[in-house]
């Protein structure tokens, strides 16, 4: 059976596209048939397995100055070629080039679902921005070893194109280990089948530790987070305070579709409706499987202290209890989305002129 010959698109900047130097950094998208510049090395390395059907060229400034629209434009220019894979760069140390490669690869991968591989030096700012979304091969600082770098990109690309199931991964995904394929770890986790049971590995590790022999932990501690605490409130008596909780308390019917695990949503709810003053608990439910909810269902103030906050407002201890209560479900949350939600809630609080918040967690 003849293996399929893959249709390849290659993206390069103005310099590698042989259009010119820095003076051409503002040039717009240009498509040339076949390989150009380092694309020739790419084609040679691909051999029979792939054909560089077109090269997309763009100026680093043009791309980097409007990343999103440029990525969209670049994608539109090449999607009609029905590519099986996109190779971008390698960008080595060049920051604008790296960011452009990353953005284009992400766009093409997201839209077409095809593999998109690029290469960068570890200090290229594009690495941290895009490593999670696409595979970025590690390259040298300069183009001195370009052939080797492109070879790594091709090896990884062919692995991603292979429809063989990777029997090493429980999920069967064909993604290849970062250490074996020379790409930057993406900060994701996958289960592998291994030879030893968890029990065997645990005892082995303890025995090594007791003997003072080296061992490799399967998980490392998180890096300490750098936080600068916000300034304290000066005039509590006139301050507006908001209540926030990640205990999953929502109006009955869960109108905003909170998920019990890996939740992506937060919402602001009218305090009067959910916690009617003096009339007992309103109509609500709890979307959170990680704790038993009996006590909070019986009295939601145990999670969201509206009762005492109202007292304190009446007594003048605080200026005002913000009329919206902000809710989310913080169970097995996706880190990146949790951070985004934090930022979104922050914007809302700032917009509403809130001076401080109490966040209650289970």
């Amino acid at each position, binding site marked *: 059976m003849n293996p399929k010959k893959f249709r390849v698109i290659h993206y390069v900047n103005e310099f590698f596209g042989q259009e010119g130097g820095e003076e051409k950094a503002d040039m717009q998208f240009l498509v040339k048939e076949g390989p150009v510049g380092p694309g020739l090395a790419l084609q040679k390395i691909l051999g029979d397995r792939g054909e560089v059907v077109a090269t997309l060229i763009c100026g680093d400034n043009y791309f980097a100055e409007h990343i999103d629209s440029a990525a969209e434009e670049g994608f539109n220019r090449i999607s009609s070629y029905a590519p099986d894979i996109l190779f971008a760069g390698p960008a080595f140390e060049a920051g604008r080039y790296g960011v452009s490669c990353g953005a284009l690869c992400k766009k093409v991968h997201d839209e077409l679902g095809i593999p998109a591989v690029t290469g960068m030096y570890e200090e290229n700012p594009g690495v941290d921005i895009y490593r999670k979304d696409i595979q970025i091969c590690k390259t040298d600082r300069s183009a001195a070893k370009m052939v080797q770098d492109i070879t790594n990109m091709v090896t990884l690309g062919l692995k991603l194109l292979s429809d063989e199931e990777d029997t090493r991964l429980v999920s069967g995904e064909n993604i290849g280990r970062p250490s074996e394929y020379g790409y930057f770890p993406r900060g994701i986790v996958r289960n592998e089948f291994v030879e030893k049971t968890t029990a065997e590995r645990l005892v082995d590790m303890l025995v090594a530790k007791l003997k003072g022999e080296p061992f490799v932990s399967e998980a490392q501690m998180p890096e300490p987070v750098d936080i600068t605490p916000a300034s304290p409130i000066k005039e509590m008596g006139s301050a507006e305070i908001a209540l926030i909780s990640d205990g999953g308390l929502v109006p009955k019917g869960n109108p905003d579709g909170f998920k019990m695990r890996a939740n992506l949503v937060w919402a602001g709810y009218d305090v009067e409706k959910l916690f009617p003053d003096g009339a007992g608990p309103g109509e609500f439910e709890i979307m959170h499987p990680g704790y038993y909810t009996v006590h909070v269902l019986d009295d939601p103030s145990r999670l969201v202290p509206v009762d005492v906050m109202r007292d304190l407002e009446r007594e003048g201890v605080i200026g005002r209890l913000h009329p919206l209560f902000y809710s989310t479900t913080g169970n097995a949350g996706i880190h990146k989305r949790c951070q985004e939600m934090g*930022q979104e809630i922050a914007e809302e609080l700032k917009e509403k002129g809130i001076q401080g918040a*109490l966040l209650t967690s289970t």
Partner: protein
Amino acid sequence: MGIEKAGIPVVNITAITSVSKVVGLSRILQGLSVSNVLGNEKLAKDKERSLRKTYVMRALDILQENIDTQQVFTLEGVE
């Protein structure tokens, strides 16, 4: 957390302070139980509300306190 970066002080009242520490919240107040963080179901309702008020007032105090690094507070003082 995003809210602190926006310059708004937050107090996280939680039953499990070590998670908040790792996530990077700066003002953390040790709450009661995972299933009842601002209450105690064994108490009579009015005593429970009183207890809750004590915790919330402590949280409001902490919002007025100047700190320069992450701090875990308890009802009585600091950890």
